[in-house]
């Protein structure tokens, strides 16, 4: 392991861990060929059980060493059974006491921003001020589903962000006259507990998005890391841009996301991850590829064509790698407790990230494996990384 270069630990910035749940449908027995995906043959009563299992896992995570618990929004496929993560977050708000509730996030350009402001404020109040509010743009193909022009994604994100902040911070009723949104009279009830407003989290996986995240003084999140060097480059760029906006991000402003598998031994973890990723890539991710391609080819979802190509290349690269190759590259965290501790330290030291987002259930990973991972995390990992 190389010695840290760019980043130093800051006092008071203990690494925090997010138990992140994609809430996948784990038993899809066909190879889906198109997006949106048909629900033929899917028993919704079975999904009742999945929701219970997943919410239980998330709620229990706060007693397993996780500082945050979170989920996100996806539509129209078994990839994630969570078209409205605020519903899950509200359940978590009532069942937990201390973990931050990280909604990562609402896809602002697809939604009514005032409604997002209201629902997020409710979650913050219901949880006693524990919301982390994700303001995300979404994955390209989601724009087909909600019939929103992908070309407008950035301008809608920008305007929706400003409007939501006004909804949270203006006590007197107001109207909004914008490019995409017009609301003549707004006054949301309740306002968030956190003042001036809950922390915002945004994706900064490329230079285009980093600019807006820096301007918004939000937590920057990067996922789908191709390798440590690429992630370091993205974080360094974010820090540089942030300085130009008059602030200096701390580790608490940087979140790095990884798929995660923790078992009793390295061998078992790698075998579990391999099986889970097969389902993840071949079943869960497959249907949206063509739809994503369509959006990227026929719109300006990414202002730079090179960024769109880079996004697709990154996905293809990750898909083609073996589990050990992904571990070496720093793309996933996978192994027995000692190995996982080393991998976490590597991320922290190399990237200076203060928040590590762990996708705990990858693909169709058995829930017993997820649960065992939680126990090992609490008993064998947290004590080793608590001082970081």
């Amino acid at each position, binding site marked *: 392991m190389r010695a840290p270069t760019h980043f130093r630990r800051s006092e008071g910035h203990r690494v925090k861990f997010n138990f992140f749940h994609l809430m996948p449908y784990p038993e899809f027995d066909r190879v889906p060929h198109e997006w949106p995906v048909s629900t033929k043959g899917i028993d919704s009563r079975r999904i009742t059980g999945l929701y219970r299992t997943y919410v239980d896992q998330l709620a229990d995570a706060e007693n397993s060493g996780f500082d945050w618990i979170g989920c996100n929004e996806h539509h129209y496929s078994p990839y994630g059974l969570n078209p409205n993560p605020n519903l899950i977050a509200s359940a978590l708000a009532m069942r937990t006491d201390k973990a931050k509730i990280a909604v990562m996030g609402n896809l602002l350009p697809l939604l009514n921003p005032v409604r997002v402001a209201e629902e997020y404020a409710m979650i913050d109040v219901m949880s006693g001020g524990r919301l982390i509010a994700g303001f995300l743009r979404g994955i390209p193909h989601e724009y087909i589903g909600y019939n929103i022009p992908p070309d407008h994604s950035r301008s809608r994100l920008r305007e929706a962000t400003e409007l939501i902040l*006004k909804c949270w911070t203006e006590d007197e009723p*107001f109207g909004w*006259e914008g490019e995409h949104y017009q609301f003549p009279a707004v006054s949301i009830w309740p306002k968030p507990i956190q003042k001036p407003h809950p922390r915002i989290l945004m994706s900064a996986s490329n230079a285009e998005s980093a600019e807006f995240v820096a301007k918004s003084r939000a937590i920057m999140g990067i996922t789908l890391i191709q390798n440590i060097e690429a992630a370091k480059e993205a974080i360094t760029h974010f820090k540089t841009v942030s300085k130009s906006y008059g602030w200096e991000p701390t580790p608490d402003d940087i979140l790095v996301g990884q798929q995660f598998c923790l078992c009793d031994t390295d061998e078992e973890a790698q075998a579990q991850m391999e099986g889970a990723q097969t389902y993840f890539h071949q079943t869960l991710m497959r249907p949206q590829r063509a739809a994503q391609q369509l959006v990227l080819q026929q719109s300006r979802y990414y202002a730079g064509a090179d960024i769109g190509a880079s996004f697709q290349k990154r996905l293809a690269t990750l898909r083609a790698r073996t589990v050990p190759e992904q571990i070496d590259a720093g793309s996933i965290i996978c192994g027995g407790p000692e190995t996982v501790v080393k991998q976490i330290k590597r991320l922290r030291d190399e990237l200076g990230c203060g928040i590590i987002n762990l996708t705990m259930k990858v693909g169709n990973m058995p829930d017993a494996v997820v649960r065992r991972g939680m126990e090992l995390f609490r008993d064998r990992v947290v004590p080793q990384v608590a001082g970081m």
Partner: protein
Amino acid sequence: MSYEIRRTELPGGVLHYHVAGQGKPVLYLHAAGGVSITRPLEALAENHTVYAPVTPGFDGTAPSDDLKTVADYAALVADFAAVALEEPFDVIGSSFGSWVAMWLAVLRPAMVDHLILQVPAGFRFEGKGGLPDDPAGRKAALYTHPERITAPAKPDAVMAANRRTYDALATLPGGATVDEALSARLNEIEAVTLILLGADDPVVPAEAGAHLKQRIPVSQRVFVFDAAHSIEVDQPERVTRLWFEFLMRGQGFVLNRGAA
């Protein structure tokens, strides 16, 4: 629609004013930069008679020794309106002009039908807001889209005189940054009022609009997205739409009636 400049003699002194259009009268009260015929003002004159008086001392006109305060100028405007406009009429103020418009609505409530207060000056709580002194900072505070300026630039000497006149009228006793006398009387405003703010305006912070919203009995306030202080320049279509909707429908402008 082109504006012409006229001159009138009132008991309180000489007043120049721009006028254009035909239709229900609207009194437009200019900002500290003087009168600029913006795109919303051109559009407004297509179906209103727009009167835009020039504060004495602005835009190359002679200053008046009788005008010491914003309220003094509001009284002169009232005298002008009593002669030139049929009552009640609608009033649109911009920044300094909004300050004048509020005093007019307080002093002569029966005159004012609909009142639009754009980026209203006079309420800089804790000294926040105001225009920076340096030219670059001033431009950034005024415009998010300076490329949309359509009015010709005024000579430096005119702008300097505008500034002097503004400072003379707007400087409050004891260096105060809030017109407390006006604040205490805002609840006397009878006109249905629309407060317009630039979402990115550092000159008039959002608190000023909230203060007015709290005190003016029948009022709405709207943020114009992607606009700094000069909202007519930065977002002419949005401002025009808001003006027309509010002047036509008053409080009902909040109701979405769908496509015509």
